[in-house]
């Protein structure tokens, strides 16, 4: 009986904590939106973050994109060979990359690379009172630290995604045509026929949304962390987990709305 009561107590507490956290994320989101539209727009800071989130993630995104495209071509080939429809591999790779894997994998890689770094950096700044220092010098940390990161996330993710789409299709081509011997013309023709502009654009809209999610949650976890060096580590982990889950869950809903 006592155990039961304790269990209920724990359950209630965790529900309460979750609700509380959702509320505070919402408040955080609103204040970020408010500060985003208050001038001045700090272009230098945005460029700096775009370099960090975008340019420096380029290599890892190209790598994952290429290999994903190659694997899809290989897997698709074994399936389509049964129906002698090998040239469909091209459009399968292209549609898979542009609609789904391009945005999602890019977002997950950037979360791991940049989202975690945002949480760690802001957490460290909080521990060493740098965030207090910003307040004291009348520079709002949300405006100064978070808005540039969120804007950079929204702007760079679509750019990274289009690169991932492209190298993924290239990777699929190089596995499909020279290695597996699919007819090059049929391969390319299938892509241009079955892939529409909306497939690409919707993938990019998704990517922008994911960029917003990962930068917002990374910043949120870092900005609201407590408890010294250990807290920084915890905030980083939580930021990656929360962003990754949110990206995958919101992907479902975005797909349901768009396609």
């Amino acid at each position, binding site marked *: 009986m006592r155990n039961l009561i304790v269990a209920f107590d724990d359950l209630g507490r965790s529900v309460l904590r979750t609700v509380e956290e959702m509320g505070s994320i919402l408040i955080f989101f609103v204040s970020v939106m408010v500060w985003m539209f208050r001038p001045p727009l700090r272009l230098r800071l945005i460029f700096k973050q775009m370099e960090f989130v975008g340019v420096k993630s380029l290599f890892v995104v190209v790598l994952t994109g290429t290999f994903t495209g190659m694997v899809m071509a290989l897997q698709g080939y074994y399936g389509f060979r049964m129906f002698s429809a090998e040239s469909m591999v091209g459009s399968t790779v292209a549609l898979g990359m542009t609609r789904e894997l391009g945005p999602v994998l890019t977002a997950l890689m950037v979360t791991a690379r940049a989202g975690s770094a945002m949480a760690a950096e802001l957490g460290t700044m909080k521990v060493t009172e740098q965030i207090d220092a910003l307040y004291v010098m009348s520079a709002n940390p949300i405006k100064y630290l978070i808005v540039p990161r969120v804007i950079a996330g929204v702007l*760079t993710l679509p750019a990274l995604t289009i690169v991932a789409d492209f190298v993924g299709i290239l990777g699929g081509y190089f596995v499909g045509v020279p290695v597996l011997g699919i007819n090059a013309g049929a391969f390319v023709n299938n892509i241009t026929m079955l892939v529409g502009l909306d497939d690409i654009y919707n993938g990019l809209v998704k990517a922008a949304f994911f960029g917003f999610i990962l930068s917002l949650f990374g910043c949120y976890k870092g900005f609201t962390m407590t408890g010294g060096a250990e807290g920084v580590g915890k905030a980083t982990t939580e930021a990656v987990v929360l962003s990754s889950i949110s990206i995958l869950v919101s992907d479902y809903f975005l797909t349901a709305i768009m396609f």
Partner: protein
Amino acid sequence: MSVISTEAKVGLFILIALIILGYMSFQVGEYGFGLKKGYLVKAVFDNVSGLEKDASVVIAGVEVGRVEGVSLVHGKALVLMRILPEVMLERDASVSIKTHGVLGDKYVEIVPGTVGEEYLLDGGVITNVKKQADIDQLLRDLGSISSDVMKVTSSLENVISGEEGEANLKAIMTNTRELMENLNNIVKRNDEKVSVMISNFSNASKEMERAFTSLNEIVDKINRGEGTIGQLVKDEGVFDNLDKTIASLREIAEKINEGKGSIGRLVNEEETVDNINASLKSLDTSMEGINKYITKTDQFRTFVSYRGEYLFEEDNAKSYVELKLRPREDKYYIVGVVADPRGKRSVTDRTVDGTTSRIEEWDRNELLFNAEIAKRYKDVVLRGGLLESTGGVGIDYFAFNDDLKLTFEAFDFDSERNPHLKFYAEYGIFNHIYLSAGYDDFISDEGNESPFAGFSIKFEDEDLKYLLSNVPIP
């Protein structure tokens, strides 16, 4: 530290991404949804099962449009098709739904109507809807054939089965045996006569073979589409008239064998076919010339727009009134006036007692002018000229059926201050109403930077359009 600046790296990165996006946009989709080219025609079908949005619309196997949408009207399917503007359809053109291969996608096929007939306009309806000779129909026909076969076999069965039937069969067999015996006797008795008869038969079969060869040749010609009959056979549903066609074919073949009939001569005479082809061709060129003129005047369009922008930092509004002249789809001119709350800047150097002082004045009542020339490449518009009474350039990017416009402008280049940069997004919410938001003069070093939000109204001046289409355009 690295030599390349942050800005350069980011700029290069974004540039690469944009180039890839541009390349991919050009590759996919023959005419992207960015440019809403072409006019709409409608057709009502009994059944369009399997026909999807964006399916091809073809004439003679060449894609000339896409299916825009399918909807239900009074229990029938209304199919909206967008046809390329350079393709003109006659009022009596026929339309049918076909299938790629046996299990492939459905598409719409249009067969052009009579030459010289009036053309369909935007929103026109193709009334000549052909029943589809598709796989469903074929399967239905096959079903009825097999049921016929079944009926025959079952009646046969009725005849044969049962005691009575058995007795009949036995009687038939006995009769046959008797007949064979009699025949044998006759043959034995007339051995010589029989051998003569057989040689006659052999000669007759040789004659028959020759007749079949000539028939084959004729059918081949028809198949290749030579001559008017070929055209006729190709156009009509073979399935529907198969019996009739074969019957008449046999008749024709017989007549041709006998060397009779004008059709036979026509088929064999090469000259006649050439004459018909030549006259068709000359008609085609004259139509082309007419088409060119019609499309040209049709494309000249004029737009008038008002745009208001509320500058948050200035607490004031900036207004634009613009006239856009578009002689061709991908080229236009913009002239307009701008009312800026800051007004027009004028700089004068005044020398008093040897010291020169520069005086900057802002005249609030002065209007600014825009005069630009613009060229459109697919989804991107590059323009340049006079922007707010200073030299400048701009770039627009269109997406989502031209509903969304992203714009970046740079003007007022001056060595003493940063250029005036501006970017904004504009989105069409209703037919003529657009909402916009952006950042004006965002690298100003004089504190002029301000975010803004606003709206614009655009409409095409129909009256002006008709007036101008009567004036010859160089």
